[in-house]
Every structure is written in C-alpha cells, then in structure tokens.
C-alpha cells in the first residue's frame, strides 16, 4: 500500500473471549471481525487510514467485559467496540458505552427487550429465530417439548418466548431444567434420565458455550439419537459441531440467519478469504458471519462520516444495507436491530447442516415482541427446500 506513515489508524476495540466457557463461539466472532478488518485494510483502509484493533480477552468473565470496555474507551482515539456474546456481558458493557457515548456492535442473537441508541444489534431477535423454529418443530416433530438451558438471562427469556408459542400451537412443555455455564458431561446425566422418563417429542436447548458440546456428547453417549429425538437450538453452530464430532451432532436442528454451507456468491468469497487467512473454515458460524458483516457496515458508515463519533455513526447506520454472506441485510432505522434471513437447518450424518426451511426475504426485527403469536409468522413467507 502506498501510504504515508503519518496516517494514524482508526483504533477500534475488539472484546471477545478467547478463553473460558464461551470461547469457542467468541473466537469465531473474533476471527470474523479480524477478517473483515484485514479486507478493509488491504483495500486501502478508510480515507487512507487502516483500522487497527485493540484486542482484549475477558476470558468469559462477565465483570471483565466492563473493566476492559472502560479501559478501551479511556483512550480518546477509541470510541467503537465490537464484542460481547452473552447478554450478561452486554449488560455490563452497556452503561459504560452509554456514559461515554461510545458505540457497540453486538454480533449475537439475544432475547430482545433492549434498545440503546449506542448499540447496533447484529444477531437475531426471537421473532427472527424462535418463532420460525417453534413452528417448524410443532409441524414436524410433535407438541411435547423438553427445555434444557444454561442458567442465565438469555435461556430463561428465550424459553419464556418458546413456551408461549408452544402453548399457542396446542403443545406443552413437559420439562424445564437449567445447568450452570460450566456444566460437564456428567452433570447432564440426571437431565438425560428425566428426558428418557418423560419421552418428549423434541428437546429445545438453550445451553450455550462449551456446555453445548458436553450436552450433545452426553446425549449421544447415553444412546440418544438426533434422527429420532432431535435437540433443537438457536445457538448450536458449526464450531461446536466440529468439536463434538459428527456422530454426536447428527440429526440435530439449529435455527439461524446463516449456515456455513449456504450457496451465495458472497458466502463463497467470504469462505475463500477465511480459509486463506485461518487455514480452515471449520469454525465459521452465524455469529462469526454477523461479526464480519458488522465490521463492514461500520467501515461503510465511517467512509461517510469520517468520524467514529456515536451520533455521526448512528445517523448513517440507520437504514444501512450490506450484501452479507447470508444475503442482503439492513439495519432497522426504528430500533438499531437488523433485518436478517431466517433459516432452519438439520445436521446430517456427515456433520453438515442442511437448510430445510428458509424465509423468502429478510425478516424485520421486532425486539419488543412480548407475546409472539403464531400468526406473526404470516408476515414472513417460508420456502421449503
């Protein structure tokens, strides 16, 4: 690059856990972020200036997110942070961001009921993933649901939404249990026993992080078969599947805006570059794709504003669109969440997701949908693959 050395880079914060219970997924978000930054810098940066990430590892420790966010924003050159996976970590960072009028890009699905003018929400809200998943499960597997979750805010709120939809569809929740985030394989034993006793039609899991690998593996080892009684999830992803192995993963179901093997030109380009940079695409996930897209949305905004000020960025980001690997996405000017694709995929015996159903166009985010009704899905026609 022909560039004078006096060009100061744009400094941004990157706050994903590289160690600890949620490190599998957050590492994939970190890589998506870094890939996008690389792309932008290789294309000449923004106004001739590179984007330079300050990367800190909160080690899956919720309090550490706040401390690091404060440290980052203490730098007068740094006003934008990409980061957070668990809602509890976002809630820690939020007051810091708002107080300093900083800006957070949050590339993760979550339970909704939040709006901050200083955050762009890049993951799915329940109306974009829970609702389609519930309908798909009710139609294909039956009405008796068993809930298993990690014990924090997202699983509980997510299950509240799911319970409402299941009841409306004439189904029932026949079991609901929560385990701590660091649950080991053997900690799931009593739940698996209970599942065998109750014999539900489908298991809905909001277990996150390394617990996911442990849960699916324990299920498989206890004789569970995803093709007979699948575990459905909004978070289980390619990176976790790669770790648990194809036999433990086979037959299970995930709802997400993006799956690694979807066929779009943008996805092919994205995966090609990802493989060149990291050697493999094994850990590419929907949250990784969201992180990647959010960096590009930021860069496009920065080209227009020439400033990382929150007020300037917000003004141009509202309504901004991007041709993402998942398809075209758009930031909803009403609520800072994102119009996203909605897909439901099932893992084959080869450990690959196959999309079984997808919305024909991006779904408008509705983060304040307290009581989703089955009819809401009528707004988003579905195509079956």
């Amino acid at each position: 690059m022909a560039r004078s050395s006096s060009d100061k880079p744009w400094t941004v914060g990157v706050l994903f856990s590289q160690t600890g219970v949620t490190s599998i997924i957050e590492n994939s978000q970190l890589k998506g972020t870094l890939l996008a930054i690389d792309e932008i810098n290789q294309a000449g940066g923004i106004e001739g200036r590179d984007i330079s990430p300050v990367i800190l590892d909160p080690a899956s420790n919720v309090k550490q997110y706040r401390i690091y966010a404060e440290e980052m924003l203490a730098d007068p050159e740094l006003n934008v942070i990409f980061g957070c996976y668990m809602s509890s970590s976002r809630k820690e960072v939020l007051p810091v961001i708002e107080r300093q009028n900083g800006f957070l890009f949050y590339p993760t699905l979550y339970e909704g009921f939040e709006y901050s003018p200083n955050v762009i929400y890049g993951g799915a809200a329940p109306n974009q993933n829970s609702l389609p998943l519930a309908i798909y499960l009710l139609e294909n597997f039956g009405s008796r649901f068993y809930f298993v979750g990690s014990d924090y805010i997202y699983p509980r709120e997510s299950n509240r939404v799911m319970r409402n939809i299941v009841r409306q569809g004439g189904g029932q929740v026949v079991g609901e249990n929560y385990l701590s985030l660091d649950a080991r394989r053997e900690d799931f034993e009593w739940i698996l026993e209970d599942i065998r006793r109750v014999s539900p039609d489908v298991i809905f899991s909001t277990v996150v992080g390394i617990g996911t690998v442990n849960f699916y593996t324990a299920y498989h080892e206890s004789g569970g078969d995803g093709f007979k009684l699948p575990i459905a999830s909004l978070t289980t992803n390619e990176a976790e599947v790669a770790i648990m192995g194809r036999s433990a993963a086979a037959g299970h179901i995930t709802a997400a805006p993006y799956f690694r093997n979807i066929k779009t030109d943008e996805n092919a380009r994205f995966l090609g570059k990802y493989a060149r940079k990291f050697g493999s695409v094994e850990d590419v996930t929907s949250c990784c794709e969201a992180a990647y897209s959010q960096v590009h949305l930021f860069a496009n905004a920065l080209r227009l504003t020439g400033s990382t000020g929150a007020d300037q960025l917000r003004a141009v980001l509202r309504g901004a669109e991007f041709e993402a690997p998942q398809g075209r996405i758009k930031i909803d000017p009403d609520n800072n969440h994102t119009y996203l694709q909605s897909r439901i995929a099932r893992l084959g015996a080869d450990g690959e997701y196959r999309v079984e159903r997808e919305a024909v166009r991006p779904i408008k985010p509705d983060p304040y949908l307290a009581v989703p009704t089955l009819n809401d899905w009528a707004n988003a026609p579905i195509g079956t693959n």
Partner: protein
Amino acid sequence: MANDNIIRQLRGLNVLVLHPRDGDAEELLQQLNRIGCRANAIWPPPSCPSDPADLTFIEVRETPDEAITNYLKLTEDRPTLIGMAGYESPSVLQNLIDLEVDSVLAKPVRPYGVLSSIIVARRNWQQSKSNEKIIAKLKSKVENSHKMNEAKIVLMKVHDINEDQAYRAIRQQAMKCRKTIAEVAQSIIDANVMLHDCVAKRVSDDDDLSEGA
C-alpha cells in the same frame, strides 16, 4: 396471572402523549413505537377528549397545566396516567400527587424505563379499578343488610313474629313479585315510614284541636 396479562396486553394499548413536541416527546414516541403501542401525541391538549386512551402520558411541571387538568376532568373513564417530570422539586412532586398519576417517567426521557413505568402504572391502575369495584360491591352489601334488618324489625313488630319468620316472609314476597330481597325490604321500610308519618300527623292535628278547644 394478572401481571402476565399486563404484559400480554401491552401492544393493544391506545397511548396518548400530552406533552409539548420536543426531544423528550420524540424519544418517548419512538420507544412506544418500538414497543409496539398505538401512540398518538397531541399538543396543546384537546379541549374535549376524542378517542379514549387506555394510557396517557402527561407533562407535569411546577404549576398545574390548565389544559391538561381540564382534559382529565372531561375524560369519563380515567385512563392510566403517567407523569413526565423533569424536576423533583416539592411543587412538581405535589402536582404528581394532585394529578393522581399511576407512575412517573423521569425526564430527560431515555428508552430504558419507559416499559417499566408503563407496567407499574398499569398494575396500579388495574389495582385501583378492581379496588373501586370491590368497595362498591361491599357498600351495597352493607346497605342491603341494613335494609333487611330494618324491614325484619318492622314485620316483627307489626305481625308479632320472630326474626326467622320475618326473613322468610320477605323472601317469599320477593319471589312472588319477582323483585330482589333488597327491593322488598325497601318497600316495607317505605310503607312503615308512611304509616308512621300519617299517625304522627294525626296525633299532632289532634293536639292542635285540643289546644284550640
């Protein structure tokens, strides 16, 4: 369960914002829009209420706003009220009390807190509505039992019967005339008063006569 209904019914609420069109009103309307309520802002407050709102946000300052007070007076069914206050000075606080708001939204308005203030206000409003109903019911119960006692005493005196017989007589009469027990009791009391008045009058007439003689 009642709480669950409050959340369930959020999106069906008709919301009215009586606040000058400034940044606070704008921020509130945007958040109401995100939440999914049907929100309408009118300023100055209309002289007569048109569409009845379920929930009304009103500006509360150190002096009572006449237009708002009038508007509320003219509204038949009191809506759930949320006061929007920028100060916590005693005069503003007094107005919050006088306007009988169900909860408060602090200014400057931020997206956080709007939902909570709506939920708390709706809970308070529902509670006071249901309290009013219960009080009205209890009041009429107490009144009816007073009437019944009085009517029983009348019958007991006139017919020289016991309380149980008096009660059964009233009940039979009610069934025969297809009236409520309370209505029959009231008729007996009224009749007795009339009889009593007539006698008392005649006596006093007699007195006048004797005095004149």
